[in-house]
């Protein structure tokens, strides 16, 4: 075990994969000479050289297209999108090309590319640099998608993503890059895709979260003496761990989902619908989704913190769910805003 920040865990995963497989290459804006705007590729250029670690122009469509072609012809490219919003100009390459190559070649071609993108609010980047946008990818068969929740998660999921023969999108909450934690490196540290992880035991409610919200859900659970919450880090959003989540909720009888994204069409909507349908009649309360409101991410520090679910708010929402057996209004509806 090594103690490191999450951005260092990303760099460690990249370095370990590059050491083990000469076909792994890394490119993106400012990833080589500068070591990445968030220092997630620090030291790679020095160790692996300019053929395998490359700075690109500001050309997301171009370099993600290159990742598709490189992956289909035998490399395992890892492309970095500095802010997830920049993927908007290149989404075709991920959703419509990479995600379809295996299908369109009857299995003859694979597209083992990894697209890493920083996501999320909390650092004052304003509404065009703070979204999560996971649902750009979640409606597009052929892709896999994971969301990192800390240093171990970063190391383990990223290595699994690079090794996977399919295109995988890795969403990295920017606000977590500086957070430290113990990391098991090497093969033991790799986290299989498609499996959720229980991060806290509990009996009264199952809280499913992902990314930066895992820490929020944990803190909320720790704060209550009235109920005990099991907290699950979903880890892989596509394909998500249906069996794991359903069996957890079957045991507690209550499902709460905590998401850092707008209410409408979040990843939690899919989980709520699936679990609600599968466990109808077994649930002791309606499914509760705790999300951000349907507004662009605000800039002002207090507003930005208000925008995202925080531990106190999550605890309070779960208190109300358990006390009344009904889904409480989100804070903005409680204040008279429309839902």
């Amino acid at each position: 075990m090594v103690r490191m920040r999450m951005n260092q865990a990303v760099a460690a995963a990249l370095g370990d994969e590059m050491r083990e497989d000469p076909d792994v290459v890394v490119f993106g804006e400012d990833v080589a000479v500068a070591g990445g705007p968030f220092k997630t590729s620090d030291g790679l250029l020095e160790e692996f050289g300019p053929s395998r670690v490359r700075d690109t122009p500001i050309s997301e469509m171009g370099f993600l297209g290159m990742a598709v072609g490189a992956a289909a012809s035998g490399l395992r490219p890892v492309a970095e999108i500095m802010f997830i919003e920049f993927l908007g100009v290149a989404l075709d390459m991920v959703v419509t090309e990479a995600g379809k190559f295996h299908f369109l070649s009857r299995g003859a071609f694979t597209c083992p590319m990894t697209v890493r993108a920083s996501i999320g609010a909390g650092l004052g980047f304003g509404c065009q640099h703070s979204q999560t946008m996971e649902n750009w990818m979640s409606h597009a068969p052929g892709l896999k998608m994971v969301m990192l929740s800390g240093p171990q998660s970063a190391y383990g999921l990223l290595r699994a993503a690079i090794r996977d023969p399919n295109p995988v999108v890795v969403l990295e909450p920017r606000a977590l890059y500086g957070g430290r934690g113990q990391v098991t490196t090497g093969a033991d540290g790799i986290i299989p895709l498609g499996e959720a992880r229980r991060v806290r035991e509990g009996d009264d409610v199952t809280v499913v979260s992902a990314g930066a919200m895992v820490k929020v859900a944990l803190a909320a659970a720790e704060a209550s003496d009235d109920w005990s919450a099991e907290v699950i880090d979903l880890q892989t959003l596509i394909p998500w761990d249906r069996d794991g989540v359903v069996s957890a909720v079957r045991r507690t009888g209550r499902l709460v989902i905590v998401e850092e994204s707008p209410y409408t069409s979040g990843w939690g909507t899919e989980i709520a619908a699936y679990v609600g349908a599968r466990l109808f009649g077994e649930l002791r309360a309606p499914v509760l989704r705790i999300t951000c409101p349907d507004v662009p991410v605000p800039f002002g520090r207090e507003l930005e913190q208000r925008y995202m679910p925080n531990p106190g708010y999550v605890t309070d929402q779960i208190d109300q769910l358990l006390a009344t057996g009904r889904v409480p209004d989100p804070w903005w509806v409680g204040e008279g805003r429309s839902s």
Partner: protein
Amino acid sequence: MGNGRRMERRRAVAADRVARYEQMVEIRAFEDRVQGLFAEGRVHGTTHTAQGQEAVAVGIAAAARPTDLVTCTYRGHGIGLALGMTPEVILGEIMGREIGCVGGIAGSMHLCDRELGLLPTFAIIGAGIPVAAGAALTAQVRGTDDVAIGVFGDGAANIGAFHEGLNLAAIWKLPVVFICENNQYGEYSRIDLTTPIEDLADRAASYGIPGIIVDGQDPDQTVEAVSAALDVARSGGGPTLLEMKTYRYAGHSRADKAEYRPEGEFERWYERDPINTFRARLESEGLLAAGDAEAIDGRVAARLEAALKAVEESPPATVDAMFGNIYAPV
């Protein structure tokens, strides 16, 4: 349909000008047949045919190795045939049958043959340009002497992927040849309505790479130009943009009668029809004797009839094919 016959077709086009002529005749007859099948209501969906552009297709196929990966557009039947794919696997794909090159789950716009070097063809304008650069990146990183070929139409020269792909290929000196089939129309719009310059090859200058105009109606010139650009790329000289001046005889897709074309334009281009002019040249050189061209026409017609029969005997695309290749197994 086996691998042997596909490679044999490819070798013939690479080796022999008369075989190239026969290949061009086959492409023209195939595309005419496809249009006929749609008109008769025997095929559903859409299709995009490439009558008039046959010399570009054989130019690429004759010059490239099967290990040189090609990205191609949704107007890809001709290039697929020239690369060695058989009429029945392309027609089967167009008609949604199991015999199709992708099992009938992809359709006319999506042809693919890994052994012949054809990546899944692109139905998004321009998308194949940076993807070709990516295939070239693999060759460069691994140190092989393969070259990638990115084929696109004039309509793609105005989308960002073109500029981003050329720029990236140029700064990294990637082994890639970009081939613009300038058939004068981007979908329903004539090029001068969408593009402020006459020669798209001029755009290469912005990226510091050679931009060469090629007579896309002459298969001898297309073969020569592609071969030369491939040699440059193979020997580390970086990318080239080839602009093949050609003409699309049909409309954009099957629903388009191309009534927007100025009067006399088709006739002017048809005077330089690539098949007629090549036939005359081969006859004057003594490579086609009296009766040879007619024999080729007959062989091609018989081959296409046999292909259609094989396709019609093939079952429709299966549910297994639909679910079979969403994810590659871990």
